[in-house]
């Protein structure tokens, strides 16, 4: 064929690698892919769910209820102040003044309520994002399309942020109305929204990140809540306290110095919100904290989010490759030697194993490393089997690196505290109370995946066709979850013991100083004076007796909620809400009601005593802090700050009665769970 008449075509120039990368960075190249089809699908699916409407309704009602209660309380208190010796002041100015006094309190209430609730909701929304896709087998399909890992992550994140923004904006009319009456600076409202939004963003991203590896969304949710709490509140607070105590500035007038601010500012939105709120108060201790300190905090959270986003995108791709069998193989797998029957044996020689049969896939090896199973060695399953399995499960699934980092932070933090404040009873009690919080938080989640997890894993039907009765199954699940909390109990008990024996420990630690240069010497427990044990022998038994029954109830209610739903996240959220309602909202509601009516004692005492925080702190306060004032058994005076004047025997009596109530409630929850399981076995 002749080339005559053919249109000359310029030879195609292949773009260099650099050009291709630069082209990818052009806004036109990626703007069109944001937010992308995943975002659209997620928004469509979130809006279609009935649970979304319930969430909005419940959130709005909770917010409104809390605001109404606060308003009523403050209003009536202010009303009381309008009575003068000359009569009732009813001028417009007085009314406006009254509203102005109410405004900051309402604003702070809204700020904290939405901050805490949205941090929780963010984890709940983010936790199922990837784990549900993996379980449903749809993630592989998604990643076989041109959609990239970062688009999936971003689509999931943005859709959830849209929902969280809608929830956040529910409070906007209230805050704007309050702003109209004055009394609240504009920057504070801006700070509240910015800090809440960024916390929700980081929380959602964290939950999505955790859900990539997690098969159960409930597990991802509880881990996200714990990590978020530790990352955004716990660790910064610990660092803050250690720094302040180390520099001897704790309690100093004028608050912390500027250098502490700049270490602390980027770390914690919770603490930032607290400090921003404090600035508004006329007698604020932290007056040198400017009203714009929250801005760097917002940017640091943005940086944290971006880091998490990048890691999530990379991790999603690697997990998918691993799931699809494309994981990296470090070395070729050797085929085992064929099994040959001994000479003269009547047995038929076994067929040689194929490499495929005997070799373990890279994915399986990874799973084995993550589990407790040692290669070629199965464990002996104990009786009863379900209880055995529950006990074998880990409280929190962490890889060796994560475990190491968490343990290091914990040990260093506690050591630092002991170093700084070995003699401070208040610190000992605070650490124990943080432990109480940790135990209760984990108790709320530990059993929430018990039955729902079996449903999610599609193993429940098989269990229910066995002779194991529903009641047995529920009981074993409950007990397994309860016992799985032992590491947390151990940490708190070890802490109490260590505190009690802090003097001899310090003496031992001081020996370390002999081997290091003088400038680096720590001088462990420099303020210690040996006065014997620092707490009573009753501390640990009473602490355990106070906390174990409510923990048992929470474990039992977790099992019950997990029979109600197929989603482990929902069960965890329900159980957390039960704990919040019983031990935070109910006392707050009653406290407010009491302050309005002026009627106090019997009811509030009745509600507050069973509160696990009160119940476990009372023995700690009396047996540790007030230990010095006790010289005989008759000197004990257990009670709340106001002191109820309970003797040691009376305190035990209270513990037994309250414990019996909680255990009764636990039994009732277990019965309900068993009945529910029987009724809906195959549903």
């Amino acid at each position: 064929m002749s080339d005559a008449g053919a249109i000359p075509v310029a030879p195609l120039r292949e773009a260099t690698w650099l050009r291709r990368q630069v082209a990818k960075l052009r806004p036109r190249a990626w703007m069109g892919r944001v937010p992308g089809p995943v975002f659209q699908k997620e928004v469509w699916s979130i809006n279609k769910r009935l649970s979304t409407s319930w969430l909005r309704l419940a959130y709005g009602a909770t917010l409104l209820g809390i605001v109404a209660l606060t308003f009523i309380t403050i209003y009536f208190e202010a009303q009381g102040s309008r009575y003068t010796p000359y009569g009732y002041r009813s001028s417009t100015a007085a009314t406006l003044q009254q509203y102005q006094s109410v405004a900051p309190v309402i604003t702070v209430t809204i700020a904290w309520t939405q901050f805490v609730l949205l941090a929780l909701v963010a984890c709940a929304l983010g936790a199922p994002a990837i784990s549900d896709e993996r379980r449903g087998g749809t993630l592989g399909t998604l990643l076989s399309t041109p959609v990239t890992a970062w688009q999936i992550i971003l689509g999931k994140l943005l859709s959830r942020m849209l929902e969280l923004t809608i929830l956040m904006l529910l409070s906007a009319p209230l805050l704007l109305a309050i702003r109209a009456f004055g009394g609240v600076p504009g920057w504070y409202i801006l700070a509240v929204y910015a800090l809440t939004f960024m916390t929700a963003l980081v929380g959602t991203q964290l939950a999505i990140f955790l859900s990539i590896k997690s098969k159960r969304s409930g597990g991802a949710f509880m881990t996200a809540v714990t990590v978020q709490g530790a990352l955004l509140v716990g660790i910064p607070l610990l660092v803050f306290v250690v720094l302040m105590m180390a520099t001897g500035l704790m309690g100093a007038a004028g608050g912390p110095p500027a250098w502490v601010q700049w270490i602390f500012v980027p770390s914690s939105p919770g603490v930032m919100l607290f400090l921003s709120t404090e600035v508004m108060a006329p007698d604020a201790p932290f007056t040198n904290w400017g009203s714009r300190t929250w801005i760097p905090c917002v940017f640091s959270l943005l940086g944290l989010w971006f880091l998490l986003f990048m890691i999530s995108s990379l991790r999603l791709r690697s997990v998918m490759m691993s799931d699809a069998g494309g994981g990296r193989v470090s070395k070729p797998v050797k085929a085992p030697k064929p099994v040959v029957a001994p000479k003269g044996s009547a047995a038929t020689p076994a067929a040689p194993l194929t490499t495929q049969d005997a070799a373990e896939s890279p994915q399986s090896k990874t799973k084995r490393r993550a589990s407790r199973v040692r290669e070629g060695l199965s464990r002996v399953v104990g009786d009863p089997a379900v209880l055995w399995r529950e006990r074998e499960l880990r409280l929190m699934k962490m890889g060796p690196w994560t475990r190491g980092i968490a343990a290091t932070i914990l040990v260093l933090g506690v050591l630092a505290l002991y170093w700084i404040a070995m003699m401070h009873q208040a610190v000992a009690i605070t650490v124990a109370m943080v432990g109480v919080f940790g135990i209760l938080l984990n108790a709320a989640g530990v059993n929430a995946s018990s039955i729902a997890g079996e449903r999610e894993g599609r193993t429940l039907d098989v269990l229910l066709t066995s002779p194991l009765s529903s009641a047995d199954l529920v009981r074993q699940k409950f007990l397994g979850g309860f016992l799985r909390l032992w590491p947390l109990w151990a940490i708190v008990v070890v802490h109490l013991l260590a505190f009690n024996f802090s003097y001899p420990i310090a003496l031992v630690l001081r020996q370390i100083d002999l081997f290091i240069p003088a400038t680096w010497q720590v001088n462990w427990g420099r303020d210690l004076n040996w006065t014997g044990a620092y707490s009573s022998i009753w501390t640990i038994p009473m602490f355990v007796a106070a906390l174990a029954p409510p923990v048992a109830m929470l474990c039992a209610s977790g099992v019950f909620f997990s029979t109600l739903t197929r989603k482990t996240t929902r069960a965890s959220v329900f159980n957390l809400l039960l704990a919040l309602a019983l031990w935070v909202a109910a006392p707050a509601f009653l406290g407010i009601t009491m302050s309005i009516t002026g009627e106090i004692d019997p009811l509030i005492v009745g509600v507050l005593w069973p509160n696990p925080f009160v119940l476990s702190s009372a023995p700690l306060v009396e047996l540790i802090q007030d230990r010095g004032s006790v010289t005989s058994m008759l000197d004990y005076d257990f009670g709340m700050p106001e002191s109820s004047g309970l003797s040691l025997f009376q305190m035990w009596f209270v513990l037994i009665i309250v414990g019996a109530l909680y255990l009764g409630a636990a039994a009732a929850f277990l019965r309900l769970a068993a009945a529910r399981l029987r009724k809906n076995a195959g549903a």
Partner: protein
Amino acid sequence: MSTITTAPPIQTRGLTKRYGALTALDNLTLEIGPGQIFGFIGPNGAGKTTTMKILSCLLEPDSGAASVCGFSTATHPDEVRRRIGYMPDFLGVYDDLTVDEYLQFFASIYSIPRKNRSTIIGQVLELTDLTVKRDALVDGLSRGMQQRLGVARVLVHDPQVLFLDEPASGLDPRARIEMRSLLVELGKMGKTLMVSSHILSELAEMSTSIGIIERGKLLYAGSIEDAYAKTKAAANISERINIKLEEGSIPASMIAPRLASDARVASAKPDDAQRTLSIDLAQGEHGHHFLLEAIMNSGGRIAGFTPEPIRLEDAFLKLTTGALQ
């Protein structure tokens, strides 16, 4: 205790189950004798899994009764559970257990004495050809191996009756053949099996009886031979013959009218492009010689002559379209 030793292993009487407006099971009455491998066939959503769940005490029927080995599922569920092994269509696995631990777990649930567990597990693993995977993590097994593990699990307590919901779903051809052999072996061991599957050819090869269900109604229950006979009767034919003509032979369309005029031929469908004739013989005993003569007399040259057997698929299609109703 109302034990009836002579009672059939599986029996249902007028089972009805509704989910809202949907009737999943409509007056299902069924009886399966000892040692039978009962193939349960039906389109998706026909009610197979619901039937199995009721018989496994996972669901309660709205009306009717079901019994396994003479024990009512409503009044003696514990007795029923001890005698059955249920394998759902999707094997949920505990991702942190090995094969051995997984089987130990269920051995413990079925209260098998600890000293006997290892031996029993060894036996069921050998039967299911999973011995080499004894210490492998369950989650790391291939789909086929997981299905076999599912069978191993239901055998641990040596039940009399097995309910297997789609045991071969998602398996490759080799794994399917192995699964089929395994189920036949279990049938030979005297166990009663109720097996649901969409792969009808497999059920045809291993089942001793079948049940066809559609929209909750049992359309047929009985032997496979009876099902074939009914299918043929419904189609009003006794046999189908496929004839392939040689190249250069006269077209099939010219032979077909001549064949169709014979009273013994129910229908003759020609395909000139493929040079084939598909002939349905009418009911009754007929030889094939008259066909050969008629074709050769018409000038046709025969390359192939194949009687086509009635397949379970045909029976299923005929029965589920209500041809027998």
